[in-house]
């Protein structure tokens, strides 16, 4: 821990801007990353994450700001001089070359001697379990094998920093899970520093040591997966990260002494009432009332109450809710409840004896409740 703190960041981006004509694609990006970190850039399409990666790689010029890699200013360096390697979305293997030559291409360009090159390629091939494919052409490989070759090409040069541009998006769902594990394993065994772009928040959660959530060219939040998941800085992050996403219900909060009374309107009648004994919304003064967005994840709305366990009336409170739609999903059953102007999802146990149209007690876990400002969407 102390050692890491005295180390230089492997990647440091300061005040980076990228404009195409009049359009600001990236706005004032600042981030820094320690050696061995697995940094995932995530966000909806068009958020600028791939452009940011391209800027780091040097394939795209930046409009202003600086990029330091391993302590050196690389802002104006060519991609080849930045001591980095990249795994492309389309793998970008050289179709006319064997797997062996593909992996060894960077060494070939750097005129590494033949024996050394062979040894390193063999080493990487062994790590990725593709020794038997070395003499094939990319066209003769499956998607997963191509993916491995692309990673091999990046690994063999032992660069300071690895860039992954949505590497799994071309694979089918099952293979994607396998390769995800594989990438995580490689990260653990090699200790490589990785910047990884994806639009898939599950990939981000499972792979990252830290996540950078982006939207419209602006970094929304940087944090560990737990931080991002539990304390999203705004409604966008809350909504984007996690599946199913956080329920964002509009309601009113009133600070009454040591607690905050929450009222969430329902379409069928009186509002749902909960009481938060935690700190509550920071901006809410004593006796004050405010309309705001109340965020609860589906797993904080359960059927524990029906099983009559753990309801303590403080962090776990029970309230009757009308189930609009019931969706069994194997391990869990999801129930949609009209709450606070949204279709809130509750995560019930698979065997919960419920049906659509029923009014059942739902247990609300208020320990992980979030509040957001209606106008700005920011956490309060």
């Amino acid at each position, binding site marked *: 821990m102390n050692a890491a703190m005295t180390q230089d960041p492997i990647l440091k981006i300061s005040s980076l801007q990228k404009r195409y004509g009049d359009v600001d694609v990236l706005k004032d990006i600042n981030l820094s990353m320690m050696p061995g970190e697995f940094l995932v850039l995530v966000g909806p399409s068009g958020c600028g994450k791939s452009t940011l990666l391209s800027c780091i790689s*040097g394939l*795209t*010029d930046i409009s202003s700001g600086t990029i330091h890699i391993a302590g050196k200013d690389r802002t*104006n360096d*060519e991609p080849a001089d930045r001591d980095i390697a990249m795994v492309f979305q389309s793998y970008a293997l050289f179709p006319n070359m064997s797997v062996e030559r593909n992996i060894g291409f960077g060494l070939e360009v750097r005129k590494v001697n033949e024996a050394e090159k062979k040894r390193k390629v063999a080493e990487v091939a062994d790590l990725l379990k593709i020794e038997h494919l070395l003499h094939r052409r990319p066209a003769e490989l499956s998607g997963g094998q191509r993916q491995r070759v692309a990673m091999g090409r990046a690994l063999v040069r032992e660069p300071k920093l690895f860039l992954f541009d949505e590497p799994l998006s071309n694979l089918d769902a099952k293979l994607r899970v396998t390769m995800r594990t594989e990438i995580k394993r490689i990260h653990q065994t090699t200790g490589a520093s990785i910047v990884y772009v994806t639009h898939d928040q599950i990939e981000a959660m499972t792979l990252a040591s830290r996540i950078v959530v982006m939207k419209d060219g602006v970094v929304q939040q940087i944090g560990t997966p737990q931080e991002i998941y539990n304390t999203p800085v705004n409604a966008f992050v809350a909504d984007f990260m996690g599946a199913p996403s956080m329920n964002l219900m509009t309601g009113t909060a009133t600070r009454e002494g040591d607690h905050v009374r929450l009222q969430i309107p329902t379409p069928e009648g009186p509002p749902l009432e909960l009481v938060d004994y935690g700190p509550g919304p920071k901006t809410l003064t004593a006796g004050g009332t405010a309309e705001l967005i109340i965020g609860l994840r589906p797993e904080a709305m359960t059927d524990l109450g029906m099983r009559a366990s753990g309801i303590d009336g403080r962090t776990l409170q029970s309230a009757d809710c009308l189930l609009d739609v019931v969706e069994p999903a194997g391990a869990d059953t999801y129930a949609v409840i009209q709450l606070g102007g949204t279709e809130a999802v509750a995560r019930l146990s698979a065997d919960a004896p419920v049906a659509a149209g029923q009014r059942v007690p739902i247990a609300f876990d208020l320990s992980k409740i979030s509040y957001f400002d209606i106008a700005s969407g920011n956490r309060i």
Partner: protein
Amino acid sequence: MLGRRQKREKWILLAPALAVLALITLIPLANTLWLSFTDTRISALPEPVHFIGLENYVYALTDPDFQDALFRTLYFTIVSVGLEGVLGVAVAVLLNQEFRGRTLLRALIILPWAVPTIVNAVAWRLIYHPDYGALNSLLFQLGIISDYRSWIGDPATAMNMVVLADVWKNFPLVAYVALAALQTVPEDLSKAAAIEGAGPWKRFRSITLPWIAGPLMVVMVLRTIEAFRVFDIIYVMTGGGPADSTKTASFYVYQEYFNYLRSGSGASYAVLVAGISAVLIVFYYSATKRQTAGGAA
């Protein structure tokens, strides 16, 4: 998108091609322009050269022979390209139908395109031969003519005979382009129109033709540019004759240069012809641009 080094590289990559084009086209073009303002002659001995301003142009623009040559070129261009267009589209429509032997016929019509221009000229010259030509013999044996004719020896028919030879060689290009465009016409569109009661001609006019108009336009303008500089076929078939009836603009300049050795005055004719070509090229550019813009939409 680009690194500074890559921007510099752009010019390194282009440099050899630019150098060759500058040497073989741009510098000669400028040179021709300069010549056109002088009284230079091609001569074994060095002769004094005088700058004479627009004198050559004044002469060229009032020269009735040159005007005739321009009109002949225009006639050749319009009739040739017009026939190639009509025949090309008709052939494309035919080759777009299902029938036995279609593949063979599609392959067959590439042959005129592959025949070298000079061989084409020579072959048709033989066919048009006044005494032993196949055309005379064929028409005579079919009873269409009663006397052998001198097809390219008669000023009244010579140009049209050259046109026929040119059309034979060049209609396949138009046909191939039109056929490729026809194959992209959605069948539903035609079917829908048929259900609405449109007859075949109406369907062709209001659906098919507009659909293929873009690419057709591009190839027709391209053919116009080529036809306007016609030289080879004239040189071999008629030598500009008889009685100058096939003397086109390029041929006129050629004679001014290499028969009369008047390079200054020849250059002014060349510049005028080049000017007309430049206008056609601008047309080609805008047709292509509209075509690529339409294709992207």
